């Protein structure tokens, strides 16, 4: 949904993590949470402060208090909040962004789904990477599923449906070429196994990984198109809904719920919360990460 610039994040860092933080940043943190569901923990407040600092400069705001006015009282406050959200989520997009999510996928969810589908003749797994941006998450999922290809998912048909609103992002995603910054969390094992060097600094995802993923343009707010995304086992939608207002968010989440198979899972970004927007999903904790579960038929938990 967002074009995430892939330039190396310039660590302006005017505030160090060890210094006390202006209490206004806690107010801003709470506002950001209320509006977007993104939560910056106490030890990450300096990152929020950095983001604010980068926005304060062009606005000519000298103190956090003045910037607070820009976020709450000025006529352009909604646009400014969006700018701030962009600042604090920039640079979060990379391959292997959340190891706890991948662990939950491979160690808990896939064994569970495999066990549930054990009696089905055609074994099929469909994962939706919604708001896939430039494809980092989608390929990360594909590589991890390929790792299970000889064990848990032997004989399975695996499909990753990746969608984004932005045409350019989709095109970039299809190319599957990434630099050091996007690959900063990717282990040498995965780099060697699933990438081909393009030049000294760039690597391209190999065809066997690409084969698993289909990229398409999709507006998550297009209700009629959303109806045709049925039969998903798992949906990832990280740092996308933060830009939606409450009503649109609820609508999109309802679609996600409807499109998931019973027993399926929905994931947001690691510091993102669904808050109270949906009471159909069950909030579930996995080691180090939170997901949302659509109860299985017959689990008595619907």
């Amino acid at each position, binding site marked *: 949904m967002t074009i995430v610039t892939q330039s190396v994040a310039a660590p302006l860092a005017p505030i160090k993590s060890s210094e006390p933080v202006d209490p206004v940043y806690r107010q801003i943190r709470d506002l950001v949470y209320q509006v977007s569901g993104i939560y910056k923990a106490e030890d990450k407040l300096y990152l929020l402060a950095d983001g604010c600092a980068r926005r304060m400069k062009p606005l000519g705001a000298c103190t956090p208090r003045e910037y607070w006015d820009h976020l709450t009282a000025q006529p352009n406050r909604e646009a400014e909040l969006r700018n701030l959200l962009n600042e604090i989520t920039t640079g979060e997009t990379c391959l292997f962004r959340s190891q706890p999510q991948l662990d939950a996928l491979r160690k808990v969810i896939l064994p569970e789904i495999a066990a549930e589908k054990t009696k089905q003749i055609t074994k099929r797994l469909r994962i939706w990477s919604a708001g896939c941006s430039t494809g980092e998450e989608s390929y990360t999922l594909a590589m991890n599923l390929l790792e299970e290809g000889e064990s848990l998912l032997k004989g399975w048909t695996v499909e990753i449906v990746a969608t984004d609103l932005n045409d350019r992002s989709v095109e970039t995603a299809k190319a599957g070429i990434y630099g050091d910054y996007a690959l900063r969390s990717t282990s040498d094992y995965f780099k060697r196994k699933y990438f081909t060097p393009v030049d000294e600094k760039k690597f391209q995802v190999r065809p066997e990984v690409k084969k698993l993923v289909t990229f398409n343009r999709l507006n998550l707010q297009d209700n009629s198109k959303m109806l045709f995304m049925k039969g998903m086992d798992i949906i990832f939608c990280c740092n996308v809904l933060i830009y939606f207002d409450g009503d649109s968010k609820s609508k999109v989440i309802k679609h996600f719920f409807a499109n998931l198979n019973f027993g399926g899972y929905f994931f947001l970004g690691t510091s993102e919360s669904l808050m109270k927007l949906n009471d159909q999903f069950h909030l579930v904790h996995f*080691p180090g990460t939170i997901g949302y579960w659509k109860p299985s038929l017959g689990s008595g938990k619907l």
Partner: protein
Amino acid sequence: MTATIAATIRERVQHIETMPAIPAVFMPLLKMLGSSTEEVRVDEVVRLVSYDNTIAAQCLRVASSPLYGLAESPRSIKAAVIGLGLRRVETILLTCCLGQAFPTKKWGLDPLVFWKHSLGCAMVCRKFSEKLGADDGEKAYMAGLLHDIGFMVNCQVFSNEFFRAVERARGQGIPLYEAEQSTMGFTHCETGGALAEKWKLADDVVDVIACHHAVEQSQTAPGLVSLVHLADLLCRVRGLGYGYYERQKVDLISDSAWAILLQQHQELEGMDLVRFTFELDEAVEEIPGLVAAVFGSASA
């Protein structure tokens, strides 16, 4: 659990008394914590702490950690007691004492991992209890701190059997109490319960130790037991478990402990559990430092 197993547990737990490392201040302290009267006991606490140099030093170290938010490091035990409040000092002391209560040679679990889990659970219990507007956060802290004391018993008196259970849990990624049950035929809840009774801990704390994996069996303090049960689960999914990956999903809101707690605290209904989890991560990040302050020298 059969009668024979119960007898074996009781018999072996009796021998714990003969172990050398229980600090002399531990029992009187437990007794004080158990009593509900709030009369001023500052001098007595100061006297108890000063009795044991190691514990006095640890207590000061913990009291001056950022976790407890004193503006200045307390210069004396009395300053620490006055600055922090009696109840809190008592729980700090208990934490320190517990670190000395068991010799570290026969651990089937990494002791630092165990302490991180126990202290983490204590902190989460306190925060959870504050969130619910419950009046005794320190009680919740103590219950969290002591809930897994049965593991220490297992390490000491069932070391071979327990070691096998830990190996099984780690190998299969299953909860430790399940592995205990299938390997040994009983769990740390039974052995911990036996020790807690021997130590004459308060009834509600005994209940927590014995029932935190089976809240519906709780007779005395179902609310506190449920709180500890949920805090324990939260710790295990937020990096303060037993040092291995537990392959499980945890649905706290569908847990029977949640329902029990909800009956007592309506605040739970409107609670934003995700945000609470994120907030806990903040507290949890302080734990390794605290564990180092309390147990660093003992378990190095």
